[in-house]
């Protein structure tokens, strides 16, 4: 993956508009965060959800936010730092300084493995 370049990612995102897509949406503080009772361990995960969006915008000056306007709702994520386009799939993720993933948004025309 490489650091998000906002215009490039915006252009890629727009190619997915108004199409039937599979998405991966994930956020996690890590399962071991539960060890520290001061912290609330949180996470959410959707693998191969179905999605169709009419508008999309990536915003911020880094880390970035991305929001998808759906036909009947919204989806968004924040904290994104890096992206990669491989085999027509767009992978976006937010990594901390040591390279640990904290959030991920991925779009694909075919289901993820």
């Amino acid at each position, binding site marked *: *993956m490489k650091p998000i370049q906002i215009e490039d990612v915006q252009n890629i995102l727009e190619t997915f508009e108004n199409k039937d897509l599979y998405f*991966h949406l*994930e956020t*996690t503080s*890590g*399962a*071991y965060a*539960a*060890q520290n009772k001061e912290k609330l361990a949180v996470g959410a*995960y959707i693998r191969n959800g179905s999605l169709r969006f009419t508008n999309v915008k990536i915003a911020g000056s880094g880390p970035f936010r991305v929001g998808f306007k759906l036909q009947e709702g919204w989806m968004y994520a924040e904290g994104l730092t*890096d992206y*990669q386009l*491989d085999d027509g*799939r767009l*992978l976006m*993720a937010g*990594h901390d*300084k*040591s*390279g*640990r*993933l*904290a959030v*991920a948004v*991925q779009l694909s025309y075919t289901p*993820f*493995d």
Partner: protein
Amino acid sequence: MEKQVLVVFPHPDDEAFGTAGLMTKFVNDGVPVTYACATLGEMGRNMGNPFFATRETLPEVRKKELKDACQAMGVNDLRMLGFRDKTLEFEDPELLVSTINKLVDELNPSLVITFYPGYGIHPDHDACGAAVVEAIKRLPADDRPTLYTLPITPDREAVLGKPDKVFDVTDVLDTKIKTIEAHRSQTEAMVARLEDGSLDPNSDIMTFIKQESFWIYPFDE
């Protein structure tokens, strides 16, 4: 001497710190060791700096590391059970139990090793341990293998008492460190310290690595 050992953990690297030394000792003694690993640790968070993986390539990276770790220990029967990381507690428990039952039927182990359910910290650890306990509980009492369990919560000794078995693995420490190093995606920060010599041989972490402690699961109580 054990006839056959079966180790069941949910993630590649779960064996590395707590059990790799004992597994190596069994291999060195000629005891067949089977390692059943339920998932490929697909949800690991460390992607490296610089990156060595994405969410989509991490499973292949960790599968390779798992194979390398088995090679380091000399374990040549690795079973990858095909579950997905962080989903074990949500699976139909019967699916997990029957998967482990089949392994137990096939291998007829004299010793099984897993996490102590309820003391695993990670939900997959608890679900894996609970499924192994249930699978063995279904055997007639006389046919049950010994079950070594690993509790990893900080309060383990306060609640469960002292471990029933403590193994000094200093004699196979080189192999154990190679096993830890094989899981580079998970252990690279520590591996760097092992390699540059900045880890004091008498430090807490090294003392911890040199000793492997197990609690024998009390089926009768």
